[in-house]
């Protein structure tokens, strides 16, 4: 399974984050929140200085691009547990 992170951060910010945290998977930059809007995940004005940002959300796609699992938290504190994503991904195998 391929994890892909998406946020409004610039490629530079993502590169710094990857370096610092030693992340090796793909980080995508959606500075104008176009894709975030397309997925209806815009949290308007919730970022620093009133920036529009993404709300936390996870989508698991199978190899053909069909969505097999969606995780939309209703609480900022309560995020996806990695083991839950792995459990869901194992169902795809």
């Amino acid at each position, binding site marked *: *399974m*391929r*994890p*892909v*992170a*998406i*946020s409004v*951060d610039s*490629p530079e*910010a*993502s*590169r710094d*984050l*990857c370096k610092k945290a030693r992340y090796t998977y*793909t*980080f*995508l*930059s959606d500075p104008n929140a*176009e*894709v*975030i809007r*397309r*997925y*209806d*995940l*815009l*949290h*308007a004005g*919730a*970022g620093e*200085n009133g*920036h529009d*940002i*993404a*709300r*936390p*959300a*996870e*989508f*698991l*796609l*199978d*190899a*053909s*691009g*069909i*969505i*097999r*699992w*969606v995780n*939309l938290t*209703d*609480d*900022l*504190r309560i995020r*996806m*547990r990695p083991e839950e994503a792995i459990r869901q*991904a194992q169902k*795809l*195998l």
Partner: protein
Amino acid sequence: MNERRRNWHLWLGFLLCLVGFVSYLPLARFPLTRDVPWVSYLFFAAGLFSLGIGLSRAFGRPEQFRGKILAPVLSLLGLLVVGMFCFFIFHAAKQLPRSARSPQVGQRAPDFSLLDANKETVTLAALLTTPLLAGSQKAPKGVLLIFYRGYW
């Protein structure tokens, strides 16, 4: 007249309320102590109990204990700390958009084209078909899209 005793329960109670609040910051990193902030609740319960003892000593036995001014002040501050915590946990953290029109299970994920951290254009179609390991021929079994708030 005897010297009246210090009402240390008031300070202890207020301190426990503060610790309950601050302790959540590191504990929020672990799901077991994050989802339900039970450690903070224990501190708050002990803190408010201690403040209660301090209050009843200050007003119930004023000839023995000090703190008639301190008791209401520290009790209010303690309640304020607990109240701010509850406001964050039960209200502020839940102010998320509903995302009712998000793509659903069974639907095809909308394609997109974005820059990665190396400023290279990446499409969802490519993410679905490019092998995970260089030199391998096998496409990934799936893709997990993780939208996050970022560091703006």
